């Protein structure tokens, strides 16, 4: 006797609901985009999460992604959550602003200037940068200093792979990153909300740590503008503001860079900005957080749950002072 069993998995089980519900919208856009993508020479595999394509016909699917052992198996936040709730003051102070206004950013063509203490300074094209190392999917927790968090399926490769190309010298103790300054592309920069350009930095050992990711994509596609297209940093054990977006300049330096939020309010935001439930923000608790999609708060984990991998970087340091 043949007993028919239902398949274990349905399409709706692996696809975020938002995406699933928008599949028709995608199909409409896919037709017009297929040609463009095909001529770009990318393997156009459209099955999966096409939402960026629906929103932004210029978006490209990234294929042959390696799975990473560093990925968490926690429930992903939806594409909609991740692309409509952003702190990216270059496009406005409200979290919905970047999703609405970041279309003015032109992520292609794009180049990154590499300079400072390295053997191979120069200007490098984004298309080349994307090929420096095999792309991986890395599902990381993201914890904002404002005490909310998400789970994001990034695409990218380790920042160390990027750095090795330029052969930093022994004088390179830190690396500094800068975001684009262009009031036409980033209208929020007409307001002096922060000191533009946005600046961030890492100690060299942090930059070379295997968890530190050069972010190039999201949900299997190139980065949407509001998430820092075309190239950003992802440092999962630090508060979100360390993960600088839309990078145009990388500089290897001898001294600790003064990052934007530290310039702004050094009593509240420091250089290290490691997620630390024991060290509160002067005005609010860092002991717990609200994961988007959940109603009650959950406990915040030391180093955002990446302590096993990164705690040794800070051995002997007073994390209360070096917040």
């Amino acid at each position: 006797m043949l007993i028919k069993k239902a398949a274990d998995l349905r399409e709706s089980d692996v696809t975020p609901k938002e995406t699933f519900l928008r599949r028709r919208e995608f199909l409409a856009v896919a037709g017009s985009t297929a040609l463009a993508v095909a001529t770009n020479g990318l393997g156009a595999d459209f099955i999966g999460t096409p939402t960026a394509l629906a929103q932004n016909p210029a978006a490209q699917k990234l294929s042959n992604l390696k799975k990473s052992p560093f990925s968490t198996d926690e429930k992903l936040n939806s594409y909609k959550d991740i692309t409509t709730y952003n702190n990216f003051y270059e496009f406005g102070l409200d979290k919905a602003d970047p999703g609405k206004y970041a279309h003015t950013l032109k992520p292609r063509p794009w180049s990154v200037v590499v300079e400072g203490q390295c053997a191979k300074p120069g200007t490098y094209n984004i298309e080349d940068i994307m090929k420096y190392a095999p792309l991986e999917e890395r599902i990381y927790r993201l914890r904002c200093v404002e005490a909310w968090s998400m789970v994001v399926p990034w695409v990218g490769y380790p920042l160390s792979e990027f750095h090795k190309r330029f052969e930093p010298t022994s004088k390179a103790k830190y690396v500094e990153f800068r975001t684009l300054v262009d009031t036409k592309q980033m209208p929020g920069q007409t307001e002096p909300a922060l000191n533009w350009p946005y600046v961030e930095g890492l100690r060299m050992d942090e930059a070379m740590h295997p968890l530190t990711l050069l972010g190039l994509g999201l949900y299997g596609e190139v980065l949407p503008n509001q998430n820092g297209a075309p190239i950003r940093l992802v440092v999962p054990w630090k508060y979100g503001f360390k993960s600088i977006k839309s990078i145009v300049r990388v500089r290897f330096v001898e001294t600790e860079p003064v990052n934007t939020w530290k310039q702004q309010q050094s009593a509240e935001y420091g250089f290290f900005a490691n997620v630390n439930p024991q060290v509160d923000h002067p005005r609010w608790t860092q002991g717990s957080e609200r994961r988007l999609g959940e109603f009650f708060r959950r406990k915040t984990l030391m180093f955002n749950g990446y302590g096993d991998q990164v705690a040794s970087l800070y051995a002997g340091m007073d994390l209360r002072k070096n917040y």
Partner: protein
Amino acid sequence: MTQTHWRQRVFKPVVWLACLTPAALLLYNGFQGELGANPVETITNTTGIWTLRLIVAGLAITPLRWATGVNLLINYRRVVGLFAFFYGTLHFLTYFILDHQLEFGGLWDDVVKRPYITAGFTAFVLMIPLAVTSTTGWIRRLGGKRWNLLHRLVYITALAGVLHYFWKVKLDATYPVYYGIGVAIFLGVRVWIAYSKKQLRRS
């Protein structure tokens, strides 16, 4: 229609409708799933800002009455104040239930430790006796003079509410400052009038 008719049939429903609209919109958008990626934050911010707006609106009524001579305005002070308390209660409960799961220990730790919570909690708690004694019966029981004195607590609520907002924002304090200016004007007018009356009596 007589003035009483206008009051009962037109102005009163308009005021109620205006005060209920933010809550209705919140409810509607909630059911539509349109409260954004962080619905709890949207609910907290919306109920919080409407508490402050209605407090400022309530504070504006008396100066406006003085300035325009439209004494009718005083009839709506109570309802505006009660709606401020309504939104304040929703705001507080959102925080108390969703952030603290109704645990008093955690709430108290926050109140003692975080200045913006201290200010917000003070503002809310001081509204409770005002809401309770808002009825005509209580005005009679307390006597107009004592009742007026008690209800000056709303000045502290307003100032604490603005501070709460000011201390909470991460970067851009423009809006808290606007509300601060509003409260300063409406309280300043009262001080100025009281001072002028005193001078008048003296001369």
